[in-house]
């Protein structure tokens, strides 16, 4: 479904088919706001993505604000230190510039993430990977098909002072602070890495062309080294690829993320509304109409806005029923059979064999 279809329907409800009162841009803003709110109210979207390990990036930037002007995957090149006005790719460069003996390497290299695993430079920083662009909250993070537990950086410092450079089999992931948790590093970092070019078959946020860099192409459709099969794109089934079109998220020696996504905002009338099933969009439209009647123009109408808000609430009730029914068939639950109950008085329940009156 495209935004233009939603706009047509909503304009019918607000009786403004020729955009005399509400402009398209305004309705687009309202739609984005409404679908964000709907997502928060329902919390039913889940996505799966993969992070190539080590990270592969098309470009590097000096400052974070540059990212939005660059297409492809981006890594911030080093850190900018405002106190001393330095931009450094490695922290030891500060010492070098200030007259201290450098630890290793020279000062003229930009090192890609994977290079740190095969060169002889002393690694003094972690290999930062990115969550998918539409990442909001993690549900499950796995490396090589095994779960990684979350570890905050503050706890990592207490746990291990060499938490950035310690090598081994990863068991935790550490979200990078001050970055809206969009980046993370594995702890400990990998001993060695293998390089596989998944090329166009690596979906989501690494969209490399064939034979780029030091990578080799694996044909789409190869399943031998993949553990996960996943229909990713919007292509209708064909007789190729087992009767349905598939994309793969490589899970061997890579990070797999199951996550709650952020909603992709709509920027154009032809933008696809890909996050939602078609039947769910009508509830977003109701909230959109409610917001439209709240706008400060000559059609401001709090009564109608309230009525459409109620319709939206009705829609949420339907979604609640829908979510409840999806779970109603679940027969395998992890629940303790003998759940310890604490009464309203807060007394501890003793075992049945315990004497009713204790005499010391």
């Amino acid at each position: 479904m495209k935004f233009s279809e939603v706009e047509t329907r909503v304009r019918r409800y607000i009786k403004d088919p020729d955009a005399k009162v509400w402009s398209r841009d305004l309705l687009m803003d309202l739609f984005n706001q409404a679908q964000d709110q709907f997502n928060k109210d329902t919390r039913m979207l889940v996505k799966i993505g993969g992070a190539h390990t080590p990270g592969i990036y098309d470009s590097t930037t000096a400052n974070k604000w540059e990212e939005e002007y660059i297409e492809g995957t981006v890594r911030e090149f080093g850190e900018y230190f405002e106190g001393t006005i330095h931009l450094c790719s490695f922290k030891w460069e500060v010492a070098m510039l200030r007259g201290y003996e450098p630890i290793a390497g020279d000062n003229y290299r930009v090192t890609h993430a994977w290079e740190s695993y095969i060169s002889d430079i002393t690694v003094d920083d972690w290999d930062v990977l990115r969550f998918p662009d539409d990442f909001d909250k993690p549900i499950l993070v796995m490396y090589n098909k095994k779960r990684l537990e979350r570890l905050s950086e503050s706890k990592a410092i207490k746990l291990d002072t060499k938490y950035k450079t310690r090598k081994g089999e990863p068991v935790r992931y550490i979200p990078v602070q001050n970055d809206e948790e969009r980046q993370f590093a594995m702890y400990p970092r990998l001993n060695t890495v293998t390089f596989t070019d998944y090329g166009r078959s690596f979906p989501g946020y690494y969209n490399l062309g064939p034979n780029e860099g030091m990578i080799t192409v694996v044909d789409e459709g190869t399943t031998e080294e993949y553990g996960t099969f996943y229909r990713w794109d919007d292509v209708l089934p064909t007789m190729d690829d087992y009767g349905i079109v598939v994309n793969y998220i490589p899970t061997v020696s890579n990070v797999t993320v199951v996550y709650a996504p952020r909603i992709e905002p709509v920027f154009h009338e032809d933008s696809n509304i890909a996050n939602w099933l078609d039947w769910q969009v009508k509830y977003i439209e109701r909230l959109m109409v409610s917001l439209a009647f709240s706008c400060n123009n000559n059609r401001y109408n709090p009564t109608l806005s309230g009525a459409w808000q109620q319709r939206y609430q009705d829609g949420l009730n339907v979604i609640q029923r829908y979510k409840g029914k999806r779970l109603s068939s679940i027969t395998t639950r992890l629940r303790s059979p003998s759940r310890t109950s604490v009464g309203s008085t807060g007394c501890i329940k003793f075992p049945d064999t315990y004497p009713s009156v204790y005499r010391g």
Partner: protein
Amino acid sequence: MNSIENRILRAIGEDPSSPDVFTSSNLTPIRDSVNDAMEELCTLSDSIVNVYKLPLIADTNLYKMEWAGNQLCYVASVLLPETQKQLRATTLSAVEKYDRRWMSTVGTPTMFFPLGVDLLGLYPMYSDEGYYADIRCVVLPNRYETSTEPIQIRGDWEDAVVNYAVAEYFLGVGDLEKSIRWFSEYSKYAGKFGFRTTMPDRWVTKGEI
């Protein structure tokens, strides 16, 4: 123009034989409301169930289903024709706690878990090709666009569909009193499936409508 549309037009004061506004080429608003009502009723009542034949891929846990025909609502049950057994429904967190290496464990699937709106997980997974699963899904009917397309709705729910569409029409023209009246009629039907409306019985007007 089908019988439901005729009833709606009569209820909103149009003459179906010679309508002023909703002519046969201008029925999209009414049809949208009818489609919305059918989707909502089917979501609440699970009235349409289809089977999705999913070819299983070796070493594969997670599948995303896209329906070319009806719209997917949710997965009700999964049958493996090879073993003639229903898979037990569970959640990702339960599988993950049950087996930390669930993404590597191979064998005949015994459980399934829905994920998000259209993802399905199987545990464990086949290590070979050549199997498929019967996935019984509650689905929503296709949205009809012409008067000759079949409408997938139980006959005795036509009243509910009419009530919904008429209420939405009056809400669209700003007549809240009539809209609430018709929505309350719709809620009587939808309420049988657990739907509770938050619309009040009467609306106190705060401003000019």
